[in-house]
């Protein structure tokens, strides 16, 4: 991996998170995956090293780093384990992010410090059983009565929402009608444990088995009016901005996962002998590995460019969608090759490549499917105008 264009700090972040992921995550990843177990202990350790609140100002307990540093950190966790990378990526982009960018001083001071320490997790309640790619079809409602929001509805596939340390969910809800007749959407902070707010952990997942995924139910759940995030009616805009940022993190998971699967495949191909030679020396395999390495470098260049554009305050919505689309699909091709190179052993749980193969599939679906990314990109390049 050629890191010549990174700053010394970014190189140090990569080295430190790599050591941490290899030393603390790798030894437990397989077992947590096998038992579908979310680890509070490991999440705290990830908090101790600074994996939560990476881009948050130190005044709220963050590390005050730029977006590329954050993305490198996610990449390094994903190189070892998709589930923990999911906890980190969702924790930062979907939990901490909206609170940090849209919350008021009081909300930030209340929630951010323990989120940045990895002691608590916040979640972003967007997807509903009938509102996936079409987020405007949100059915959950929030009515303001006597300075209380009364929330009714349900959410599904919400990362970090139902763990023992989940502290608050930002719930996207209809709060009225706009003048143009469309639904007015707003985000409301609902602390876990509020009466009328129930969470159910979703089990039997194909992938990200040791990350927490919840189904949420709101039944006349009441929270104070001040729990509104940002301004009333800004929910849709907040969601779009949050997803732009989130796409970079999902892309980082694709990139890191690709790197991890590629390294496993390379190692195995050099150790595995058939017909008296390492299988990496057969051209058919060597070319697979060459393709993997090339696509990974391309993915990295694209994603890092997107991060630099964000750091520079430039519009990055198009390139974020491109990065998410490309990095997640590269990982699809890389894990396919990587399992193929492992032969029969690649189908067995004793070999970590099997986990990478499963964990990849979420990336072309979550936080905007590949199809939605293509829609976003095609709009940006003017196909529909």
């Amino acid at each position, binding site marked *: 991996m050629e890191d010549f264009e990174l700053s*010394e*700090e970014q190189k*140090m972040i990569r*080295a430190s998170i790599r*050591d941490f992921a290899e*030393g603390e995550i790798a030894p437990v990843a397989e077992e947590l995956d096998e038992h579908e177990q979310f680890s509070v202990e490991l999440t705290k350790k990830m908090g*101790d090293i*600074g994996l939560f609140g990476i881009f948050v100002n130190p005044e709220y307990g963050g*590390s*005050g780093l730029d977006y590329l540093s954050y993305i490198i950190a996610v990449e390094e966790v994903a190189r070892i384990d998709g589930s923990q990378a999911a906890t980190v990526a969702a924790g930062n982009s979907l939990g901490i992010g909206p609170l940090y960018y849209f919350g008021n001083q009081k909300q930030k001071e209340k929630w951010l410090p323990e989120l940045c320490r990895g002691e608590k997790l916040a979640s972003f309640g967007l997807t509903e059983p009938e509102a996936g790619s079409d987020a405007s079809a949100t059915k959950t409602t929030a009515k303001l009565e006597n300075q209380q929001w009364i929330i009714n509805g349900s959410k599904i596939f919400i990362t970090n929402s139902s763990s023992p340390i989940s502290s608050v969910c930002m719930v996207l809800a209809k709060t009225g009608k706009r003048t143009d007749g469309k639904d007015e959407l707003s985000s409301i902070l609902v602390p876990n444990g509020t009466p009328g707010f129930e969470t159910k952990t979703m089990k039997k997942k194909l992938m990200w088995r040791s990350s927490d995924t919840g189904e949420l139910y709101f039944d006349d759940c009441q929270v104070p009016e001040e729990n509104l995030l940002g301004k009333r009616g800004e929910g849709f805009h907040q969601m779009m901005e949050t997803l732009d940022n989130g796409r970079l993190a999902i892309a980082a998971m694709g990139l890191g996962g690709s790197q991890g699967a590629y390294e496993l495949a390379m190692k195995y191909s050099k150790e595995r002998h058939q017909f008296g030679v390492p299988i990496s020396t057969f051209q058919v395999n060597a070319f697979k590995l060459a393709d993997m390495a090339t696509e990974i470098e391309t993915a990295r260049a694209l994603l890092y460019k997107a991060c630099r554009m964000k750091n520079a305050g430039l519009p990055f919505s198009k390139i974020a969608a491109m990065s998410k689309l490309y990095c997640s699909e590269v990982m699809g091709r890389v894990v396919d090759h990587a399992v193929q190179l492992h032969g029969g052993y690649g189908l067995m749980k004793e070999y970590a490549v099997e986990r990478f193969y499963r964990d990849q599939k979420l990336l072309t679906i979550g936080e905007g499917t590949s199809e939605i990314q293509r829609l976003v990109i095609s709009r940006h390049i003017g196909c529909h105008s």
Partner: protein
Amino acid sequence: MNIYVCIKQVPDTEAVLNIKEGKFINEENIKWIISPYDEIVLEFALQLKEKNSDFKVTLITVGPPRAESTIRSGLAMGAENAIHIEASDYLDHKTIAKALAQALKNEGDFGVIFTGKQAIDDDASLTHIYLAQSLEIPVVTNVIGFQMEAEKVIVEREIDQGAREKIEMSIPCVIAATKGINDVNEPRYATLMGIMKAKKIPIKKISIQDLGIEGATPTVTTEKLEAPPEKPSGRIIEGEVTESIKELVRLLKDEAKVL
């Protein structure tokens, strides 16, 4: 108290080393790390600091400009200050020790000086002895236990067959520690916050020429560097068990000369 931790930048333990011009290591594509014994003793020094708020931990190293990355890593772990004595040429241990000693004298007020018991590149285990000699202070090697009292330290060092020797020393002194000192076996990870803080700490750079130790005649020079001979592959002795065992014993006696 001012605690100094001497660190050395060495090639990663997994680095593949190639020899250049018969007596140098080819530095291309080498990943550099802090020597693991130094890293453990740095961890230990940081733990001491956490228990004693008036302790200050300063890193000191002699090395080429690339050594700065190792200093930054040490600062990211939590050291407060760093001194980098810049020297590009290969130096022998005595010269390095003299440079360290002079820089420490210039700093003035030093208490305990920690080093790893050896650096993992040349495994010479010499610098800390020369350093103590130059400063005319006591030194103990292979330190596995360390306690501090008012004006002294009590250390335990590993000696043969797992025995330990207990030694009382005055301060200042040089402590060359081994892995497991006071049960410290793992260095901490540099946190992202630590990395950011380290970025802002100025490293005191001193050119070795400015220390006035020129003229120090090297006591050791490298004449030649060569890779160890490749290990011959294993041999399987075929045949009847009673016969092959006889042959094995013969080979162990006559060829391997281990019996």
